[in-house]
């Protein structure tokens, strides 16, 4: 397996069994994402985007084929090991933010750090840094219900980046947001990618997203139907070439 790929997916098939029906959610998909890219997986609803992302995040298993993330093959890992692996390598962002409603912004961001050997003081520093990056240092003690959708998603992004993961996976992170908040989130993910050189894999069917990403993988009915370069906006392109 090749270290220069952040994500290396080879001939992956994922079949869901529902009663006697079989759904081929992914059909022989092969994708290689190099390190430190910001890529989008796009396609119509039901085309297998979430399924693919879940395989990359190590929360689902391929029916056949091979999945390697960060140079490590995760296809055969046991659930316990996989959970520990996720905690170390994956930052997750969901469409509906998935913050724990009874925990404050600070406590939500701290959650994944509880799985690390960091001390309480170190955790506090990390959480504060992450919340500062997403611009919510002043909302640490707010509960999710006291935040707007855009703010909730920024807290979720802080939670995804606080462990300094190898790769951030985001499933329709702007799907539930208004245009302005969506733009903020896309800018934040871009910054994460450009400034901190994290690999970001984002599922979206938002056409605006194409302006932010390096590559677009197009899925249709579980099949990879195209790989295109993103239409990076001039400001982003300039930033990218400057590096």
């Amino acid at each position, binding site marked *: 397996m090749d270290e220069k790929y952040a994500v290396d997916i080879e001939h992956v098939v994922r079949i869901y069994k529902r009663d006697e029906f079989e759904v081929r959610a992914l059909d022989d998909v092969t994708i290689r994402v190099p390190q430190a890219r910001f890529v989008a997986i796009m396609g119509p609803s039901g085309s297998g985007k979430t399924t693919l992302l879940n395989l990359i*995040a190590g*929360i689902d298993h391929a029916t056949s084929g091979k999945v390697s993330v960060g140079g490590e093959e995760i296809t055969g890992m046991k659930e316990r090991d996989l959970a520990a692996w996720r905690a170390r390598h994956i930052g997750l962002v969901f*469409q509906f933010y*998935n913050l*724990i*409603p*009874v*925990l404050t912004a600070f406590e939500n961001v701290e959650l*994944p750090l509880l799985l690390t050997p960091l001390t309480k003081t170190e955790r506090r520093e990390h959480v504060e840094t992450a919340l500062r990056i997403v611009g919510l240092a002043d909302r640490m003690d707010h509960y999710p219900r006291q935040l707007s959708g855009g703010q909730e998603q920024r807290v979720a992004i802080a939670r995804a980046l606080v462990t300094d993961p190898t790769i951030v996976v985001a499933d329709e992170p702007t799907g539930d947001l208004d245009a302005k908040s969506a733009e903020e989130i896309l800018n934040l993910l871009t910054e994460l990618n450009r400034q901190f050189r994290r690999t970001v894999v984002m599922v979206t069917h938002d056409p605006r997203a194409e302006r932010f990403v390096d590559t677009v993988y197009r899925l249709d009915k579980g099949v990879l139907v195209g790989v295109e370069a993103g239409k990076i906006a001039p400001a982003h392109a300039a930033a990218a070439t400057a590096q």
Partner: protein
Amino acid sequence: MAIPLKYNVRSLLVRRVSTSMTAGGIALVVAVFVIVMAMVAGLGSAISDTGVPDNMIVLRKGATTETYSSIQLDQFDAMKFLPQIKRDTAGAPMISPELPVQVLMERPGGAQDNIVVRGVLPIALEVHDNVHLIAGRMFRPALNEVIVGKGLVGRYSNTHIGDTMHFGRGAWKVVGIFDAKGGSFESEVWADIHNVQDDTQRGAYYADVRLKLAPGADSDALVHRIADDPRINLQAETEAEYYKQQSVVANQMRVLGMIVAIIMGIGAIFAAMNTMYAAVSARTSEIGTLRALGFSPGAVLGSFLIESLILAVAAGIIGIIIAMPINGFSTTFGNFLTFSTMAFNFRVTFAIVVEALIFAAVMGLFGGWLPARQAMRLHVVEALRRS
């Protein structure tokens, strides 16, 4: 590290209604448990506190209670001067022949209970050294005077000093009130033993004999002498042993209380289970999120078990607080063994509090187990899809 406790505590507080309903059920069960156990403890200690460490009780061979015992005067005379018996300052042996009889006494409301009237000699106050007059004076022989245990005063009619009681064939004047440090004598009336013999018209005999051991006396030797001397031919044991046997009643109550508590506890377990299943179902996507973040299935299991435990133990504490006012509450109880009624105080001991908390915790663990296991077994992706 585990999923933080504040997650569980706050989740419980958010589901205010179902949490308080379940907690209320568990609290009630624990309260009943504490009350029953406090009653058993109070009863048990009232019975066993009746004994004094250096006292012995002598009964007819084979008799298990005073009620079924009888001793003739010549048997009493034969053991009266045995060397193992302590002498008082006047040189008299501290040995007390006694004749407890059952009489019906009336409550102010009209109901009647069996009460023990114990015929004794004045020496009884020296032998039973936990019995003290707290008001009035000792009865004088042959005058149908009585002293009344303070557990009866006010609870039954005509139990105050100066009152005249009617039982048996005679009228009896109350001249004193005594305390027995919580022991069952407090639920008795003491009268002159010869008056009692006359009143019952069963001749001159005693039911049992109490005696105080001389310091350092060999009690085994005394037991053998009393058993083997053909003029005596009786059975002696320490009061401690005797009252321990008498407290089988308390033990039977205890078993009964346990059975009731367990049956109610099973009900509470189902309530807790229902609440926790609802919690798991309502928080499926949270569970999926926690798992996706990297918390292990075991951490999820532990978290929901602990949540159930917190709920049950908190409810248990409430139950104990609800039951606490019963501590010291005084009541009467019909003793199945002697067919007499005795007064005692409910006692909420430290051991009962600990047992009640353990009982609550067990309900929490049993109620939480299946839901927590269901939470643990949720498939991450399936759980997340339920956003």
